[in-house]
């Protein structure tokens, strides 16, 4: 969620300290893993607030219906190359706004369900779904941009040069 190894270590440390300090307040009203994640998310959000980083509210209205994907039906090269390397994806995730990143990591990386994410993040299930969709779309956009940069920097593949079939 921080996009920075050293910060992540500091926050992991703070989270474990909070866990030991607050373990007595766990009443078993939710799954322990959910409680723990909520605690960690709070530590991270507190940290982001202190740093004054812009956050995307998870309570924002789902306006995905108002923002369809911009498309150019004349664009032939519209699909990723068929594979995404993990480093590029990790970098792209790091570039996501914190709200999108948190939901994406919890759902697509760690495998949490939307109802669990809603509880962890303190938002509605609908918002969790909406944030996830937007996160994936932003990732696609970012990966395609990166792919375009790499392709532009590479010498032309002779096999795909004009005149070859």
């Amino acid at each position, binding site marked *: 969620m921080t996009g920075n*190894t*050293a910060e992540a*270590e500091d926050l*992991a*440390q703070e989270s*474990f*300290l909070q866990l*030991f*300090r607050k373990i007595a307040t766990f009443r078993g009203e939710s799954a322990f893993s959910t409680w723990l994640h909520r605690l960690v998310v709070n530590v991270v959000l507190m940290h982001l607030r202190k740093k004054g980083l812009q956050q995307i509210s998870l309570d924002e209205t789902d306006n*995905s*219906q108002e923002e*369809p*994907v911009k*498309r*150019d*039906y*004349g*664009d*032939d090269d*519209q*699909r*990723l190359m*068929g*594979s*995404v*390397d*993990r*480093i*590029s*994806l*990790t970098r792209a*995730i790091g570039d996501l706004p914190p709200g999108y990143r948190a939901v*994406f990591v919890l759902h*697509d*990386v*760690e*495998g949490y369900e*939307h109802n669990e994410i809603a509880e962890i993040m303190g938002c509605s299930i609908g918002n969790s*779904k*909406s944030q*996830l*969709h937007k996160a*994936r*779309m932003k*990732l*696609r956009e970012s*990966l*395609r941009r990166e792919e375009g940069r790499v392709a532009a920097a590479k010498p032309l593949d002779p096999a795909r040069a004009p005149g070859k079939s």
Partner: protein
Amino acid sequence: MENRTEDPSEKVRPACRQFELELSDYLEGESRPEVARHAESCSFCSALLADLDLIRTTARSLPQVDPPARVWANVRATLEAEGILREQPSRAGWFSFPSLAHWRAPVGALAAMALIGVALLVPSAKIDHASTSAWLSVSDRDALAARVIAIEDGEFAGTVNELQKNFDARSASLEPSVKMVYLTGLKSLDESIQHCRAALEREPGNVLARQYLESAYTRKAEVLAAALKFDVP
């Protein structure tokens, strides 16, 4: 497939808009037959679906990273200072495990194994030198700094061999179980070094293999240094 070039100025076709509205639920596994049907007839939406599915699948395969041992050591120290965790005279640690200090380097060796494993598995991973020694204490890292610089100057093998000799000479005094963990970690690092060397012999210009080799040597030096408990000036 629909003819994409028919009207490039077209903004969003109604069918595509409907597809996008239902795409999220479809990817969640909900039954949306019209999504699959539309994807078959629209190359743009088909590409969108394939890309999001690819992103989702790749995300699931991202490696999970455990916090370094330094984090546990700091947590323990803070909790002891706050009186939440009482320090045992015998240094018996949390949850009946041996003292964390006692196990710090072996745990580090295992962490190094895992990190090297990840580094070798991820083809284009960048080696984060800022975090390579994160699981050592600050004093250990300071003591290592000069040696790591020497390593990065190209004296990998010499420096690490010197440490290895010292370790071999003193390892007899280690508790057998601790020694075994060290040796397992070092063996794995040696295998990584051999692997990287072989890669470099095949392809001397392989920058990633060189980075991994540096990383493997650095981690081996850290493990050995921790085992030897340097006297920090």
